[in-house]
């Protein structure tokens, strides 16, 4: 009886020590869960999910406040990736939060632009350049196609066009 208890206690101690050592020695998962979720998001910062940007949505997903199916620009693929990461049931994007669309970029009709700077203030990634009373334009490489500039425009001169895919490398 005593021997058995001793052996078990010894085993428990030894295992505990081994676990402590490995915990100290092995590289730790330094990335926070929010960071890992955020990395899977398309970073369009469009706010369609109801949060003011991708990282806030990631934080909400991790805390359980938001579901994983609210990212329309990411599409079903992002939902699947999030499900794989978090061990949830994969599904499709909830149509309440928008419909997955092919990549797009904003385009300003410069002949109609009155230079009001409202779209510049709305752009989450500073992809619109221009100054008051001067025509604005979109830096196409940086535009995420989030559509946030469309609503503030008083003359409705912004529309979204499909993003040209980069030509295959020669």
């Amino acid at each position, binding site marked *: 009886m005593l021997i058995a208890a001793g052996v078990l206690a010894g085993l428990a101690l030894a295992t505990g020590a081994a676990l402590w050592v490995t915990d100290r020695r092995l590289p730790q998962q330094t990335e926070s869960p929010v960071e890992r979720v*955020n990395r899977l*998001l*398309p*970073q*369009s*910062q469009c706010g369609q999910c109801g949060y003011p*940007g*991708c*990282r806030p949505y990631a934080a909400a997903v991790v805390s359980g406040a938001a579901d994983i199916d609210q990212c329309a620009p990411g599409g079903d693929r992002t939902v699947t990736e999030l499900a794989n990461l978090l061990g949830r049931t994969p599904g499709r994007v909830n149509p309440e939060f928008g419909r997955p669309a092919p990549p797009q970029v904003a385009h300003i009709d410069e002949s109609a632009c009155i230079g009001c700077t409202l779209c510049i203030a709305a752009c*989450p*990634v*500073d*992809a619109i350049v221009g100054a008051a009373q001067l025509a604005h334009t979109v830096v196409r490489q*940086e535009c*995420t196609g989030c559509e946030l500039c469309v609503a503030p425009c008083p003359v409705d001169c912004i529309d979204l066009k499909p993003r040209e*895919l*980069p030509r*295959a*490398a*020669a």
Partner: protein
Amino acid sequence: MKTLQPPRWGIRFERARNGLELRTAAVPATLQVSLHQHVGHFAEPAVSMGETVLRGQPIGTVREGALGARVHAPSSGQIRSIERLPAPGRDAAPVVIIDTDGKDTPWSGYRAHPRPLRLATGALRQAVIEAGIVGLGGAAFPAGVKLNKGGGVDTLILNGAECEPCINCDAALLQAEPAQVLLGAQIMLRILEADTCLVAIKDGMHSAAATLAEAIQALGDDRLRLVRVPPVYPVGGEAQLIQLLTGREIPAGGLPWDSGAVCQNVATAAAVARFLTTGEPLISRIVTITGNGVAAPANFAARIGTPIRELVAAAGGYVGPECTLVMGGPMMGVPLPGDNLPVTKATNCIYVAAPEEIAERGTERPCIRCGDCATTCPVNLMPQLLLQAGQHNDLDRLDELGVHDCIECGACDYVCPSRIPLTRGFAAGKQALWARARERLRAARAESRFEAREARLNRNANARNAVLEAQVAAVDNSPQAALAALLARVDPDDVAPDSGDDDTPAGQ
């Protein structure tokens, strides 16, 4: 002369038709010279419409610092136009159309050096760039870049092994101009400061081997050695040849010269020698016209820009009405949309396939995991696992299994008993991985821009708040201060303190 043991991988083809005749193709009335015949950026046109050009005059130049190669006029004549046209292997490229005058007058802008080996290394390197020389094995990588390694290279490999079956242009060149090739090898050795040059030819090129061995003997340069490689496909691939000849494997994602060996096609060496000795840049190359769809297969020394149609006509024309043109060999070649396309620096072979050769591959059946594909893969990939990952659209797994190392040689397709088009899937997988990497890059940029903007907005808001707070804090709320402020606001003239005891305003 050394003969190597065959590698474990690859496909052993029946000996292909050997020794096609080398003929010189006539200069056509119209040349279509693409300005994008090489890896990198297309060359900028250096001529304008209506201008007269001479043979060997530069018509396209490379911007400073950009990857590319110069393009020269293949014959003398007048520039008819510069248009965007389809070019072999490309959807569209700027193409200079030259109406030749039939005189073939040479341009004298480049000097001929009777003894090129006495030139300084820098001058030789510059010459390779000036002459617009690119890898003539079919990849068309600018040769100047590959020769500009500045040390660390001990072996030069001259590739005359002809990767694909049926291609015969290297053998024809070796037989016709062995001295030129060997001089090119010596020049390249000087540029690279390397001490060994292995000239690889395919086992079975008997006449070329004999000619070359004689030429090496006559030259008496013991740095040059002839090696016969077994006729196994794809032994003529750059990485495969380096591995077979030197035993050094190029690391995944690495470049061939990381192994300390530089591989150049024999025709590239000959072009370098020709430019230095005669001052003639790269304006012609040898093209093999072969296949069951052409009456008299032959090799042609053709000017760059010659329409493929004219070469096929010179080779006796099509045997039937429905022949398919393939640029490159039967294994890796790309089908051409028509025969109006011109010969480029990359055109080593035009395979004219008869209708019966473009047979149905047969129905694709499920993978039976026989492993033949893995045995034959020259880069030791496991196509059966890659196939599975591709079917599941598992990009991470594809990456892990090394799909980027696939050279798309098609050997696995060839041996697959289930007739699965493996290579096509791997090419698509590579594209998907690149697309994903691009998207990730975009996302990272968007994120950092978003964060920078948030930080800026916060900073501005904080600065504004600080100013407001400072103003609020500056206001003194004590009664004395309030009285002083009140008094400061009162106009002293309105008060009239000494005019009387009553408080009546002065006006009454």
